């Protein structure tokens, strides 16, 4: 039987890295945007 380990490992490693990368990026972007909105709201409140 042929050895397919290179293709199998690459498939799983690439998929895992891409999915995890996109998830981390989306989470961080969501959090930083929320923080910025919160900061602006706070500034507006302070200015009255």
């Amino acid at each position: 039987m042929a050895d397919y380990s290179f293709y199998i490992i690459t498939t799983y490693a690439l998929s895992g890295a891409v999915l995890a990368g996109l998830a981390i990026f989306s989470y961080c972007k969501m959090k930083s945007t929320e923080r910025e909105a919160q900061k602006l709201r706070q500034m507006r409140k302070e200015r009255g």
Partner: protein
Amino acid sequence: MHRFANPAKFNRLADQILPWAIFFGLVAFATGIYYALFNSPADYQQGESVRMMYVHVPAAWASMSIYGFIAVTSFVALVWRHPLALLAGKAAAPIGATITALALITGALWGKPMWGTYWQWDARMTSVLVMFFLYLGYSALWQAMEDDEKAGRAASILALVGVVNLPIIKFSVEWWNTLHQSASIMRLDGPSMPAEMLKPLFIMGIAYQLYFTVLVLWRMKMEISKRKIQALRQLATANEA
């Protein structure tokens, strides 16, 4: 439907769904990968290389269902002018493009040892590539115009026109003579695969759907915050003037 057009209500609902979707998504990925790599049989023809199917096929399913999701949100946005529907489509497009790219790349990695080539311009592969470009076009239209309303409408029309590609992808292996194998799961006479292989495949399919649910909710929350920032900045500019 307009009940959830209120961003605060939507955020509350999303915050309730997210922990469960993250938990079950992680469990589904862990279980699916365990079965795919250690607890499912090798194929009698393809041998161990069949294990790539458990990543490639659910990615291909997700790429099509996400496109369907964008088409539905586009329809809702155009007909009922639902504000969150537009944001949902915008939030889903980068996820769909990434998963479609993964489906194409993992398909190529599976194709090389099985067919002797990474790529061939057959109907299935080409129609999926067209879907990838539709995702890019949809996102590009959002970026191309300053007015979000106009951009959203143009992108929605493109998404609806592109729906014609979904049946082409599904039936391409029947309508044309393709290198890609024909359907082995969604067939009129039932799946042609043993239960030991179907189990990890469906678990991974669910994992991809939960992954999409989590990411689309995060990205929608991000889009809502972006709109808030924009509105607050406009208010600040108006007050200064």
